[in-house]
């Protein structure tokens, strides 16, 4: 973390401390819930079990929001711009694909559509960093 101020280093460390365990727990809960749901889809526990990975996912999202809140104005601007651009791309892509389903394309799986938003956000964030001549996200 060369060239970072002490405040940035502390903020980054805190972000890692909050996010990495949440990601690990999320992956474990996804795998675990999918394993337990096999053959048990009709039980009363199916719905809460299927939704259980959202709990660590909430903490991942919260740690990102807190990291951005702790950041300075330029970093906040970049994250805000990335969020807006991602939203617009998703909206237009959704409309475009929706129109295409009327001419025969298969219905999309919402899970994968939502999953692709995350890397799209960070790709756009990286492009904005390059635009401002910044070396790292």
């Amino acid at each position, binding site marked *: 973390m060369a060239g970072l101020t002490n405040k*940035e280093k502390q903020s980054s460390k805190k972000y890692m401390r909050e996010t990495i365990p949440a990601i690990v727990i999320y992956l474990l809960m996804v795998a675990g819930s999918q394993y337990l749901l096999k053959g048990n889809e009709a039980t009363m526990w199916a719905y809460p079990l299927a939704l259980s990975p959202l709990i660590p996912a909430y903490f991942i999202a919260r740690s990102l929001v807190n990291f951005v809140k702790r950041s*300075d104005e*330029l970093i906040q601007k970049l994250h805000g711009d990335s969020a807006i651009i991602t939203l617009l791309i998703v909206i237009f892509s959704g409309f475009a694909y929706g129109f295409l389903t009327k001419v025969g394309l298969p219905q999309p799986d919402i899970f994968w559509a939502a999953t692709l938003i995350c890397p799209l956000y960070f790709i756009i964030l990286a492009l904005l960093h390059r635009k401002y*001549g910044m070396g790292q996200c």
Partner: protein
Amino acid sequence: MSQAELAEQLGVSRQTINTIENGKYDPSLPLAFGMAALFGKRIEEIFFP
């Protein structure tokens, strides 16, 4: 004064200082006032339209 030291004193990232120096980002008014106060100059002496 290095970019890192300036960033530390202003409470922003070194990347922000670098981007301002390269003219790729215009700081907010509070940050601009902070920079002016740090250098003991007026904003108009540091930033130009």
